């Protein structure tokens, strides 16, 4: 779990100012720059094409590999299979020995980083990285911090230091000068090199074509000047047809570096002409070696659940939009592959133990899934991985006890919440528990319904029950006004805490316990309403056929369309126009697909001035148990959200997730802000002129 060493790394990354600035600048610039690159292109349509190509490839990868090998060999290339890094090194050492080769130039290849190729070759060959970023970090023995921009974590001053050390004279932090210097240094190496090693972005089975995308020109020189060219690639690079190159090359540069196309796209389909050696300029066919690497890929591509990871086109979009990666960068992940996809790749290409900590970094906010050209469901796979890992490495005792013995047992949970009331104060970010739980309040609630239209079952969830019963009260009030009686079915914890901790079995069991009552409700009621989107997601998972499950704001929006109007109740007139903004919870927007409903419902209220805040759908950082697991990251994310709220000028923030509500209130309290946060149900109930105790507690204005 989160051990001291790992948390120290996280802390160090958060305290590293130049790193924070570099990552922040990049993360802020990326969305707009990417949009410009994709202008005129239907991304959804494009990625459907890519998904089809890649899923076909994954299904048929062994056949593709066979055809690819055949084609490469037919055209005069030498084909090798490598089980792992040791194998690759052995193959290259043999090639080197046969020609008495000493110097190797290398174009950027994540696959070669993965197997630590340079280290393995170092007694036999001097390997020089030629990608500028890779060359720079090679001088200081560091690993790349990003899949596409390996040295993004280094300032120009640090780079100047590195250049100075290498050249033995003082180099100024002047970027164009440093780049010119790199050109000189590396040109000399290119001209002397015996072997060129590269990876490739795409490998076509039909024609034996290997596609390499670069910007600097080092890929071309690596492939052209030395008499030997070795291309190392993993099975997941394979695609069936030559024309499949099109959609992939359309997406990779746009998603990775926001370019329309990289400066160079090189397609190698057979050995071409070459000089015999650096010193001998007789023209001979190039010695082209293609090494197809396993190193865990066969297991990955054969795994029923995880094979979709093979759809990755290595564009790094997921890193580029990940709120956590944007805070701590790649080196915290400690491995070669970083970000959401990094945790998954590490589990297979390295080991589950190596992936154990880095997968914990995932908030499961779902942002990456929106941008992945391969349409990989990264958050879902990370939860699967977490469950997989937790089977072997269980979470700490207390957590396990709470998740498996307290939460699933209603009476025990209830009692412990009563007992915990004073103790909850210990976690200062958490509010006090309500004096009476929602289900207790509901028992004495008199539902006032004129002309009853039907019944709605309410699955309220733990936060509403124990902390925010006013949300429950507001919902009953509003649904009554709309003509529906509200029923409370038998229910217990939805299982989310267990699921997100990787305790799959416990989560499944809790879902199963709710299932019966869920199915009953689905059969007997008109709707099943929830007011916590995490709960919505869990219930839908438990019973996908329960089609009546609907989140409150979506239901309210629908009822309004059907004619339920707030004009039917006495509306409170605001003294002045109140600026209001909205925070989209991750589950609400990205899992439930609820996007326009909040704005349509809220801005229709007279006196409301709707404001779109920046990054309104960016994770607030709560993410349930994450805020206890990695509070340092949760608070940084909260800081950013609070900044955006302040910038918007809103006086009230409305949200539809009790978890976000809790966290935002904590954040605003910390900066002594006067901005109030309300669940949409509470806000709407107030605006409908509801009466009773809940308004004394929560009314932000006087009628």
């Amino acid at each position: 779990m989160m051990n001291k060493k790992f948390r120290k790394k996280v802390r160090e990354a958060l305290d590293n100012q130049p790193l924070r600035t570099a990552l922040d600048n990049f993360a802020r610039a990326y969305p707009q720059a990417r949009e410009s690159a994709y202008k005129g292109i239907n991304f959804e349509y494009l990625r459907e094409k890519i998904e089809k190509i890649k899923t076909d490839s994954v299904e048929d990868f062994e056949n593709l590999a066979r055809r690819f090998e055949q084609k490469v060999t037919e055209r005069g290339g030498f084909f090798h299979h490598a089980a792992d890094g040791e194998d690759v090194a052995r193959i290259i050492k043999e090639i080197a020995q046969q020609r008495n080769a000493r110097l190797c130039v290398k174009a950027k290849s994540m696959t070669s980083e993965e197997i630590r190729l340079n280290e393995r070759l170092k007694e036999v060959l001097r390997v020089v990285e030629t990608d500028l970023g890779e060359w720079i970090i090679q001088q200081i023995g560091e690993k790349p911090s990003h899949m596409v921009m390996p040295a993004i974590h280094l300032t120009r001053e640090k780079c100047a230091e590195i250049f100075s050390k290498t050249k033995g004279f003082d180099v100024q932090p002047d970027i164009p000068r440093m780049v010119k210097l790199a050109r000189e240094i590396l040109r000399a190496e290119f001209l002397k090199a015996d072997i060129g090693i590269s990876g490739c972005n795409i490998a076509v089975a039909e024609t034996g074509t290997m596609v390499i995308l670069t910007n600097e020109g080092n890929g071309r020189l690596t492939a052209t000047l030395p008499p030997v060219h070795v291309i190392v690639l993993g099975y997941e690079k394979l695609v069936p047809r030559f024309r499949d190159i099109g959609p992939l090359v359309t997406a990779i540069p746009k998603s990775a570096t926001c370019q329309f196309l990289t400066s160079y796209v090189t397609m190698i389909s057979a050995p071409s002409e070459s000089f015999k050696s650096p010193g001998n300029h007789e023209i001979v066919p190039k010695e082209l070696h293609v090494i197809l690497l396993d190193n865990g890929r066969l297991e990955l591509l054969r795994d029923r659940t995880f094979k979709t990871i093979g759809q990755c086109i290595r564009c790094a979009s997921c890193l580029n939009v990940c709120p956590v990666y944007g805070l701590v960068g790649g080196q915290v992940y400690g491995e070669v592959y970083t970000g959401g996809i990094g945790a998954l790749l590490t589990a297979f290409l390295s080991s589950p133990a190596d992936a154990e900590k880095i997968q914990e970094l995932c908030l499961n906010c779902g942002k990456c899934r929106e941008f992945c050209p391969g349409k990989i469901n990264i958050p879902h796979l990370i939860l699967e991985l977490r469950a997989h890992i937790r089977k072997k490495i269980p979470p700490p005792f207390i957590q396990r006890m709470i998740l498996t013995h307290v939460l699933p047992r209603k009476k025990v949970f209830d009692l412990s919440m009563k007992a915990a009331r004073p103790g909850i104060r210990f976690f200062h970010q958490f509010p006090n528990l309500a004096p009476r739980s929602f289900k207790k309040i509901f028992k004495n609630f008199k539902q006032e319904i004129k002309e009853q239209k039907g019944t709605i079952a309410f699955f309220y969830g733990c936060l509403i029950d124990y902390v925010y019963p006013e949300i429950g009260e507001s919902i009953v009030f509003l649904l009554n006004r709309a003509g529906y009686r509200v029923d409370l079915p038998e229910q217990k914890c939805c299982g989310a805490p267990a699921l997100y901790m990787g305790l799959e079995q416990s989560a499944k069991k809790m879902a199963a316990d709710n299932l019966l009552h869920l199915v009953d409700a689905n059969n007997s009621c008109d709707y099943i309403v929830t007011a916590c989107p995490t709960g919505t997601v869990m219930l839908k998972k438990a019973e996908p056929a329960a089609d009546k499950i609907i989140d409150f704001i979506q239901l309210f929006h629908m009822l309004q369309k059907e004619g339920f109007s707030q004009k039917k109740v006495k509306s409170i007139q605001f003294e002045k126009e109140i600026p209001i903004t909205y925070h989209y919870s991750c589950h609400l927007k990205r899992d439930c697909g609820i996007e326009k409903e909040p704005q349509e419902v809220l801005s229709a209220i007279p006196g409301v001035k709707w404001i779109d805040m920046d990054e309104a759908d960016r994770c607030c950082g709560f993410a349930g148990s994450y805020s206890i697991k990695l509070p340092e990251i949760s608070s940084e994310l909260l800081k950013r959200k609070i900044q955006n709220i302040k910038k918007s000028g809103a006086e009230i923030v409305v949200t539809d997730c009790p978890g976000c509500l809790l966290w935002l209130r904590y954040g605003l309290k910390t900066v002594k802000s006067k901005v109030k946060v309300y669940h949409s149900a509470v806000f709407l109930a107030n605006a409908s002129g509801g009466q009773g105790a809940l308004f004394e507690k929560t009314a932000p204005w006087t009628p």
Partner: protein
Amino acid sequence: MPDKEVNEAFYRRFKNKAEELTVNVLRAPSREVAASLVIEQIKKLKIQKVVSTPLTLLNVNTLENYALSMGLDFSTQLDRNKIETAEIGISEFDMGIAELGSIFQDASHLHTRLVSMLPPIHLAVLRTASMVESFTDALEVIEKACNGEVPPYLSFITGPSITADIERELTIGVHGPEKLIVLCIDKD
């Protein structure tokens, strides 16, 4: 490679896209004008040493004579040292891609590759009529032309060599050329 009429819309789009990337796009109505445009560039950039592949789209003789008369070093030899020390390399391309400002060549010949890669300035020559609209179109053309046996080495070039590896600041001119000039010839 496509043998058709000049598509003015494609050319305009190509020129706009390429110029956004600092590419210098020139156009000549004929072989003769093409050669004189090259000479103009050599003069303007104060170049002393020129290497070129055996050009067919314009009159190499004109260039050779000019070089001779001005005492410039002009070579069409496959000589690595000469190419490495040249200031400009001139090579021919097979296609242009309008929507990207990209140029494409079958670079299977070593000479072609070296001339296009090593010198700091690269002057690429192509037929204006060889423009296609998109990358996908270009792939289709290649597929049709090569009948399953794709030539050993194909190059798509879009602008000069660049990097943003240090602090994400864009720098032009890394290992490949720092300046790309594209000369489009209408009639060759």
